[in-house]
């Protein structure tokens, strides 16, 4: 009998006819919407996390085990056999932290890239803001990173690393790393919808990027080749973040960073500008194309 029925008071609708006619509740809608994105994000992160080690015996333990095993391999090859060191008494810790951070970047960009395509089935059936899919995928790598950082800290304590006040700055570095990761993931995810070739290209590119950063080798080896070359390496925003976090968390005395190695502040600002540019470009490219994803896949 009544045309307009509010959810809360179905029966009172008839009486409601008069006054409140025009002004539609603008604010509640706002909050409702952001809530919606949050609820969906939470559910997707949960699902992704459950799916991740689906069917494996050790499950979540792999989040810790995999980087540790990689670390053991690299430790023996580079620290024991090739005798790499940057003069830190805890180079093994510096190496482990670098691997953990790099793993995050590699994994998050990969998962972000695949995320849209792998959820194509869902997107053809329900409409929801699809950037959430990419965010959820990268957030899952964030969870792994958090667990891994816990392991690094425990190991560092055992190894007798002296923490300074700079540890408080680590979240800033993580945030920067996450910003560039999301920017890259958004671009890759968009591209992947159109051409799957990007998956193979990105694999090769990641390999190249890995060796272009002082993760397994100390920066001093690059300086030996040419100081200019070392500066160039530090302009890479990923390298800059990883070095910063190493500096803040473990070895402020010995870790060369963009800030203490490059003296021209304008040049040193390049990595930060790159992060902002990549994030902005990623958001722009994704937004431009995201409405068409359901049709293309």
């Amino acid at each position, binding site marked *: 009998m009544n045309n307009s029925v509010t959810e809360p008071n179905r029966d009172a609708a008839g009486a409601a006819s008069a006054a409140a006619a025009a002004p539609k509740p603008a604010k509640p809608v706002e909050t409702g919407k952001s809530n919606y994105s949050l609820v969906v994000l939470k559910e997707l992160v949960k699902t992704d996390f459950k799916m991740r080690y689906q069917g494996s015996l050790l499950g979540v333990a792999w989040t810790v085990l995999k980087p540790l095993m990689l670390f053991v391999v690299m430790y023996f090859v580079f620290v024991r056999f090739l005798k790499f060191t940057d003069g830190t008494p805890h180079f093994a810790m510096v190496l482990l932290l670098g691997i953990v951070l790099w793993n995050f970047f590699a994994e998050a960009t990969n998962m972000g890239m695949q995320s849209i395509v792998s959820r194509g089935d869902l997107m*053809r059936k329900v409409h929801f803001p699809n950037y959430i899919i990419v965010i959820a995928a990268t957030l899952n790598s964030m969870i792994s990173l958090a667990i891994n950082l816990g392991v690094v800290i425990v190991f560092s304590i055992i190894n007798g690393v002296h923490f300074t006040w700079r540890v408080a700055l680590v979240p800033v570095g993580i945030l920067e790393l996450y910003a560039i990761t999301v920017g890259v993931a958004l671009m890759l995810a968009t591209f992947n919808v159109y051409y799957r070739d990007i998956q193979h290209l990105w694999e090769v590119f990641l390999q190249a990027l890995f060796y272009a950063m002082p993760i397994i080798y100390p920066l001093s080896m690059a300086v030996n080749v040419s100081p200019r070359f070392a500066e160039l390496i530090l302009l890479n925003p990923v390298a800059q973040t990883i070095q910063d976090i190493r500096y803040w968390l473990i070895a402020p005395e010995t870790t060369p960073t963009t800030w203490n190695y490059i003296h021209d502040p304008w040049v040193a600002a390049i990595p930060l500008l790159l992060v902002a540019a990549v994030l902005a470009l990623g958001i722009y490219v994704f937004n431009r194309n995201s409405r068409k994803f359901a049709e293309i896949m």
Partner: protein
Amino acid sequence: MTSKSSEKSSRDAAASAPSSPSVPSSLDEETIITAAGERHETTEEALESPDTTDDLPEDVVLRVNHVSKVFRLPTERASGLKQAFINWTRGIKGYREQQVLRDISFDVHRGDFFGIVGRNGSGKSTLLKLISGIYVPESGQIMRRGKLVPFIELGVGFNPELTGRENVYLNGALLGFSRTEIDAMYDDIVQFAELEDFMDQKLKNYSSGMQVRLAFSVAIKAQGDILVLDEVLAVGDEAFQRKCNNFFASIKKDPTKTVILVTHDMGAVKKYCNRAILIKDGRIVESGNKDDVADRYSLENLEPLSTPAPAPAPAPAEGEGAGEGSGEAEASGDAAAAAAAQPAPEQYPLGLNARVPLLRVNAVSSPVVSSDDEFTFDVEYRFDEKTPFFLTFALQDMTRGGTTYEPGMLPMTRTGHQKVSFTLPMRAFTSTDFKIVASLSEPDPENPEETQRIAFTNNENSLMFTVRNDGEKTHDGLIKQTWFDLHQHYEDMDAESEPGTDAESGATDAA
């Protein structure tokens, strides 16, 4: 306000006339999808843009306004970089454009049960996806009020690796419900799906029927305002289908819920929908009255698929019809050709064509009779071909739904302009409204057991009449209580020795 119930019954006629109420908008969501692909989810944003929902009548929950959709179909495989580059260097577009929907406009009112029918590939599903916001229109806009719950491609997007419970919660979140809201409807969903014992199993261990049942239950039990259903009436086993039917019947009565249904089941359209549109080649070709839409759809299905709109045929029978026998050659031509040669529908009212330019049911008795009377009517037709043909009619109960009586195929012997009259006694029936529809058929050349329809009466050419007994209260049943001898018999289950000692109590006499 009372307008809703009355409007519901008269909606067929007043498809476009908005009921006047100045009731406040009680909706928590307004969405406008424009061609540019900008989506305004909030009222605030919507108000800033020129396309506001302000001019939308209060009871319109969905307005599709001149919407067109074009798909780009790749002509050669260009899903690789190499091919894309080669195409680019050669200046090849690599795709061809297919117009799926052209200039579609319609309104759906609150409380409607709105049917969208059309043959495969006509663009129905694309339209549903546009309405659901999954696709964006090329031009035009779609305005929507309230929470929309889609059920498209037989599912709501389940993950096979999650348990049934987790899937329900994930899906609820995607559909825009908070955790507490889903908690509230969870039991309902599980109960409707009859999957209480399976909710902690992974979905991949479900049978396909169970999966669809769960998905469908989520869609219909979710407390959305607009429910969009795509080809669902064949879901589940018979028991579940009966349940769905009951659900449809109840949601049809609910003036706050709107259902948009895509189906090939014309029975369902006639039974549930109050309005419908028929889409053909991306255009709306019939809109409004559900019976006309359903009949027109059945007619469309006689044509071979994807024939380009038939060239204006040299109307076969019309000219020769007057000159007696010479029409025979055309008429006995093969059925497909005859069907394809049907003239453009504009020339004849729906259901009629050049072969049968006239078919109408007329009342002979007064259109209001009592159960003591007999009702006499005649069927007037014009048919000039010398092939065997049949007439049939159906007595439809407009109050309770369904066909009450149908005499079967009656062979006709006279051609030309004829009137055949029939008389039906009404004494078995309680008060009701009846509608008589009629159709002409000919034997199907491909299947001698079957006949195919060549003409039928549309809403206008059908006949409505009423059976009314003064002072009689309305009955749930169409057949009078006194019509059968009702036998009642006790069997005392406590007394083991002599079962059935209590004698029959004979026919009960009511009233």
